[in-house]
């Protein structure tokens, strides 16, 4: 008998016992090492921070700690308040990592595509945030788990998956994600099934590392300023900063003494009027968003706005310059919808409203004669009425890392007249464009 036929015979002979052994050990499981899950779930990599191991942790952490610690704490509190009493029902487990600013969602937020891959699981399999927690209910579960717990092989097909070592599942073994894997086969990277691919591309947040459950925004926004002028003596009385009769008289007659003690002359030729210039309002804030679905996010937070208005009433030679500063604290509430999301990019639309309260206001008034400040005074401005506004925006977000991204949102705001009589840009331009940009911190 030649060597070749002997080898064939041996191969066939090996195949019998190898196949039998393979079949016997198929699905065989053992108790996992104690504390394994705790170590896995507490690892930084799971929180999506592999880049931190490359020396960027300190830098990123500094930024995050400085700017988002308060937001993270707020997010944590709010999250804990909103997590259902049975956390396993959502599969979400939130943990604040000691010494870091991160809120880590440790479990239950598997990528939807992975979830889709798991869809063939039997109905009795429920997501558990803590896999070590004893399973409950159905007989099917008990039988499955008990066999695992006792170190016995799972019943064939119990997990709903074909075993990858089976002779007819050779294609299955080609799914791989490790570029540097020892066992990577050539030509393994095919596409997802079309339906899953479509789901990931259209109308959803980016999946995988760049999806999020909670997001915190640190933003800056402003709306265009405005300017206007009204002429004539009556404009002095109708000025946004109401002048007293004496002040108007001083402007009109020039009967006061100038700073140098000389008596100025009335200049009837001077054009008298009121200029109002609303500077671009500046708004900063922190908001927290909660993903109520992969597509819809509800957000709220806290904003601080400064409105500055310069009002010049009088003539060029003599006028009152009033610098008004109004400080507002606002609470926005809005809903955003992801229109497109892929990997690092997300395009969305948002709409909502905001309630603002003027917490402080001040007028610094300067009486200026021929460019020289003759006198100055100040007074506080109180606006008791609340300021409501509605806004709509479209935004684009780019994520540098799974946790940090930037976004830009052009939008349109409508400030509802609150009838206060305090002149500001909200009243001058009730309908106005605004632009917001900022950092967005996302937590899973």
């Amino acid at each position, binding site marked *: 008998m030649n060597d070749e036929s002997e080898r064939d015979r041996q191969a066939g002979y090996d195949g019998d016992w190898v196949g039998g052994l393979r079949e016997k050990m198929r699905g065989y*499981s053992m108790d996992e090492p104690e504390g394994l899950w705790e170590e896995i779930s507490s690892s930084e990599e799971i929180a999506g921070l592999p880049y931190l191991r490359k020396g960027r942790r300190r830098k990123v952490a500094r930024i995050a700690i400085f700017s988002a610690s308060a937001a993270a704490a707020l997010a944590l509190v709010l999250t804990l308040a909103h997590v259902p009493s049975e956390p396993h029902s959502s599969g979400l487990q939130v943990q604040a990592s000691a010494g870091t600013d991160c809120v880590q969602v440790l479990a239950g937020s598997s990528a939807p*595509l992975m979830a889709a891959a798991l869809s063939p699981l039997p109905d009795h399999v429920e*997501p*558990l945030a803590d896999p070590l927690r004893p399973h409950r209910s159905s007989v099917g579960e008990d039988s499955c788990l008990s066999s695992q717990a006792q170190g016995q092989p799972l019943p064939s097909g119990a997990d709903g998956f074909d075993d990858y070592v089976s002779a007819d599942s050779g294609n*299955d073994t080609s799914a791989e994600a490790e570029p540097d894997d020892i066992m990577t086969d050539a030509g393994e990277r095919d596409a997802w099934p079309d339906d899953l691919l479509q789901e990931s591309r259209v109308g959803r947040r980016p999946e995988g590392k760049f999806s999020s459950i909670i997001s915190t925004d640190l933003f800056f926004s402003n709306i265009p300023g405005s300017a206007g002028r009204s002429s004539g003596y009556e404009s002095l009385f109708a000025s946004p900063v109401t002048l007293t009769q004496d002040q108007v008289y001083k402007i009109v007659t020039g009967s006061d003494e100038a700073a140098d003690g000389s008596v100025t002359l009335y200049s009837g030729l001077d054009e008298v009027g009121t200029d109002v210039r609303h500077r671009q309002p500046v708004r900063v804030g922190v908001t927290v968003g909660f993903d109520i679905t992969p597509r819809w996010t509800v957000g709220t937070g806290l904003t601080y706005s400064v409105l500055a208005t310069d009002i010049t009433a009088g003539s060029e030679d003599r006028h009152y310059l009033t610098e008004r500063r109004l400080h507002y604290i606002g609470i926005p509430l809005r809903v955003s919808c992801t229109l497109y999301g892929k990997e690092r990019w997300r395009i969305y639309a948002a709409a909502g409203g905001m309630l603002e309260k003027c917490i402080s206001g001040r007028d610094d008034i300067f009486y200026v004669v021929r460019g020289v400040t003759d006198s100055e005074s100040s007074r506080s401005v109180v606006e008791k009425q609340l300021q409501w506004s509605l806004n709509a925006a479209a935004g684009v977000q780019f994520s540098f890392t799974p946790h940090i991204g930037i976004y830009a949102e052009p939008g349109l705001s409508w400030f509802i007249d609150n009838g206060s009589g305090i002149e500001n840009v909200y009243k001058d331009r009730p309908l106005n464009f605004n632009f917001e940009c900022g950092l967005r911190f996302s937590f899973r």
Partner: protein
Amino acid sequence: MADLYRRYAGYLTAVVSRYVSDRDDVKDILQTSFVKIFTSMDRFEYRGNGSVKAWMTRITVNETLKFLKRDEKFLSAEVVGIPDSGTDEVPDADGIPAAVIQDMISRLPQGYRTVFNLYVFEEKSHKEIAALLGISEGTSASQFHRAKAMLATKIREYRKRNE
């Protein structure tokens, strides 16, 4: 993630334990593997039933081999001094509990069981095993046959004890 872990932790523990005896090492490998699995989810390509398990197993075996290859001489060192049994006896596992087989395999010499596991459970050819481990095909085949013979002997002895 938790669901995935709960579902496959036991199975992957058994896979790693066939290659590595030390329980702490098994834990380290599993931890590294699961972290890699969870952080690579977005790169996983679903190919139907079985692909998740195959993918996770592949990553885990890769990590196991990486761990083993840190000791570059783990294979060759054990070949020396262990004569080829020269027997064609095959390890007939019929009727032997899987846990017993698992234990027997895990007690094989390191190099033997690595080749044995890759050949039997990962369905690698000796050519592929040689490439994976950086050994010759002949060494792979030799170690496999010795592992097979040792396992057959262990099974025979087990049967004798339990007759």
